[in-house]
């Protein structure tokens, strides 16, 4: 069974049909790309998948669970985490605290325990620190753990966003233009990171990207979106040589 199965998803904003009859099936462990010209509806689909927008029609099934129309929190609990096209870290919090915010739902103690600093408070915080540092180590951010997130260079902020999303322990990771604003070296490094995450965290990744070197480098399958509709879908090499796709991207 597919990890994510989206059927005939659609949303209208007033008279505008932003996404229409979008269907996709992503297998567990896949690296899947969603591409298309600007304004095709890619980020809208991410917003639909994460519950920021409620779909007008269609259904979203994650690992056998119907999450159509659920709230962002419920969907996050069900196992979808994301990063943002424009980085949205908690800039005033430290790097490690950003990750610990992501761990929020997996380590619980009551407000009272926190106020009175009961033993459980220290135990849980210690576990959280350990887990957060482990994650930061994966992304080579351990040394900057106690710096404010706003002080990180751009590439590291992108990595921290991925670490924070992973901290919520998702089944499916959505990356919205992870290579935006990166130079070719940083992009190459990012590709390694994404592959590493997939392999070591048993993660399934769906990413939006304009950088074709990244898309052709790591995505196994692609869906191409144009004007809110699916243009074509399939193996990366096939899709990228499809004349219709080339037309959509480069014009007649």
């Amino acid at each position: 069974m597919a990890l994510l199965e989206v059927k005939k998803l659609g949303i209208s904003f007033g008279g505008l049909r932003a996404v229409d009859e979008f269907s996709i099936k992503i297998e567990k462990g896949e690296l899947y790309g969603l591409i298309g010209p600007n304004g095709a509806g890619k980020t809208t689909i991410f917003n639909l998948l994460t519950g920021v927008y409620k779909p007008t029609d269609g259904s979203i099934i994650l690992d056998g669970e119907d999450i159509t129309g659920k709230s962002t929190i419920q969907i996050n609990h069900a196992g979808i985490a994301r990063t943002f096209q424009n980085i949205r870290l908690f800039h005033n919090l430290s790097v490690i605290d950003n990750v610990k915010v992501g761990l929020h739902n997996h380590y619980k103690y009551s407000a009272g325990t926190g106020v009175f600093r009961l033993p459980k408070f220290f135990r849980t915080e210690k576990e959280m620190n350990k887990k957060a540092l482990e994650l930061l180590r994966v992304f080579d951010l351990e040394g900057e753990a106690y710096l404010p997130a706003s002080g990180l260079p751009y590439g590291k902020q992108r990595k921290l966003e991925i670490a924070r999303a992973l901290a919520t322990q998702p089944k499916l990771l959505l990356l919205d233009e992870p290579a935006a604003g990166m130079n070719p070296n940083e992009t190459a490094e990012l590709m390694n990171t994404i592959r590493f995450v997939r392999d070591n965290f048993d993660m399934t990744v769906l990413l939006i990207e304009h950088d074709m070197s990244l898309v052709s480098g790591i995505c196994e399958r692609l869906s191409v979106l144009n004007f809110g509709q699916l243009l074509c879908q399939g193996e990366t090499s096939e899709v990228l040589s499809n004349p219709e796709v080339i037309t959509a991207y480069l014009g007649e």
Partner: protein
Amino acid sequence: MAFLENLINGISLGSIYAVIALGYTLVYGIAKMLNFAHGDVIMVGGYVVFNAIVKANLNPWVSVALAVVACTVLGITIEKVAYKPLRKASSLSVLITAIGVSYFLQNMALLVFGEKPVTFTSVIDIPKISLFDGKVVIKGETTAAIIASILIVIGLSLFVNHTQKGRAMLAVSEDKDAAQLMGINVNSTISLTFAIGSGLAAIAGVLLCSSYPILSNTTGAMPGIKAFVAAVLGGIGSIPGAMIGGITIGVIEILGRAYISPQLADAIVFAVLILVLMVKPTGILGKKINEKV
């Protein structure tokens, strides 16, 4: 010597303002709104303690605990009923609603607790401190206010900066949508903020009424506004800022009353607000916001 006594009284009054200002600052920091009904929650706290002690003959500590619980519930209810439906509305609508809630509370108090001001009996049982052969006398209420506010500021800073719920509050204060997508329940976090702010308002009410024992339906209004000035002076959104602002305002008020003019004391406090807004609008500890063009 009189100066020293005035200064200590100023610090004490300022400590009470600081506790109230914390409520403003927390709610502003996390929910991005000015809860002008905050001062009136203080008044409700005062009345709950008064009635619990005088009418129900309860132990003062139990009465204070009762007031904290009552105000916490009141704060959460106000947020749910009046502010939550306006989460996406413009800040002006929320501000006007807050003023409406303030008048609602004042008039409900008139209805429930009666229009005649009552005399509050102090719940604080700390002996006086005499210094310099009795030339300077510090009342128990004064000491209690100072100690209570220090404990509250330290406790609150620890809670906000070093616990899970506090971290969630900071995350929500920075970016509600991103916090939600990381699985944080924004509504319950905002409720918690109101709960803490209102619980503190109850404590402030007890401290205030113990020092200044006349309690009426508008008791909370003026200290509420002054605490707001304190929060702005210290840098709204900052916990230590609320403490610094509160004490500064308290000292200015008492010294102004003693050495300039009792009638002008309040005017001086508000003149300080105008000065702050002119010179450093972000307050003493406020962060500078670079607006993008």
